[in-house]
């Protein structure tokens, strides 16, 4: 029995071949079953949020999540939980589950994390570093290695994940060009 499609999974490709991934949403791709469509998954203007990318290279399955906050607290949450990918502690396990449903093997999964900057220097709390810490804890709990990490700092970042070549491009705010980081 198939559940109805989740509203927080983004599948729509725009006319430039991009999937723009909003906060609290995720995308999963099985590259073997996609013959002529090789979208780029894009997050623009990443601040304290995190882009979490997970790849199973052997099975050609990958996913990406756009995370806002470190942890979910159901006691205080006022609405039905519709966007688990808002929270690092729920996003990591859910992304793994979704990848496995698509055919990925947990032992093959590797992660890339980007973001968690502190944009306002004088803010007392640093949600970005809390996000990074929680994601690292969760990845460790599931025994998933981090292949590449571009986190912290004080500038926004834009990320492009090219599913065709399984490569990742990164650009910091005020930088002109994207650099290949994976």
């Amino acid at each position, binding site marked *: 029995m198939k559940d109805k499609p989740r509203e927080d999974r983004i599948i729509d490709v725009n006319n430039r071949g991009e999937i723009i991934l909003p906060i609290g949403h995720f995308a999963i791709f099985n590259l073997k079953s996609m013959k002529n469509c090789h979208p780029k998954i894009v997050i623009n203007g990443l601040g*304290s949020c995190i882009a979490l990318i997970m790849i199973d290279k052997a099975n050609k399955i990958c996913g990406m999540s756009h995370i806002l906050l470190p942890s979910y607290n159901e006691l205080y949450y006022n*609405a*039905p939980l519709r966007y688990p990918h808002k929270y690092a502690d729920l996003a990591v396990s859910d992304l793994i589950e979704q990848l496995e449903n698509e055919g990925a093997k947990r032992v093959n999964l590797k992660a890339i994390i980007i973001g968690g900057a502190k944009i306002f220097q004088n803010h007392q709390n640093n*949600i970005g570093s809390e996000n990074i810490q929680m994601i690292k804890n969760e990845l460790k709990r599931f025994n998933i290695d981090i292949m590449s990490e571009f986190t912290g700092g004080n500038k926004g970042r834009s990320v492009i994940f090219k599913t065709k070549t399984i490569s990742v491009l990164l650009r910091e705010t*005020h930088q002109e060009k994207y650099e290949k980081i994976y």
Partner: protein
Amino acid sequence: MAKKDKIGNDIGIEDIKLTPIQLDSLKELGNIGSGNAITALSQLLNRRINVSLTSVELIPFWKLSDEFGGRETVVFGIISHVEGNQNLSILQIYTRESIINVISYLAGVDIKHVQKMKQLSDLDDLILSTISEVGNILSGHYANALADLMETTLVPSVPNMAFDSLGAIMDSLIAKNAKYVDLMIMIDTKMNIEEMDINGILIFLPAFETLKNFFKALNIE
């Protein structure tokens, strides 16, 4: 029909609705707050400022940063928070040119120096404190007008500045306000001074629990 989970008997995302009277009163709050702030700026710059109508929107947290030109637009953001009994944030967004023009008018500095600005650290302390003071005056006047209406005190924090993409600037606001809810209330007013090429937006984001206090203070159901 969205299924509700075990805590769904509280306010669900689709249950948060504002009545026309509540919307109008928020628009009025925004008009009065921004009006007070923009009058202060007008006196500071000795110019007439064009002001748009204030708009009020109930917006999903993940759509907020698509407003005002999109996540990648690089802007100058000044943010102030009021915390305590009432929780709200006031965000000011200016184009890079606006900030350069304001600084050159107020600080009387050689504009060439400022024009090279690529990041905040390119600016010296005098200029940074000038911008911070402008931000402070606007958020203070905005908050004061709201406080008067509600017969309470609202003291905004010292403003924090960033020169970055709109998405990066909004992230922290969204993180602060959408921790326990999926919808946010945004009350925004646009302003511009044509002869000085200054364009800005004043955004007022009240937390939901603060909203309830507002309506109570204004005798609105």
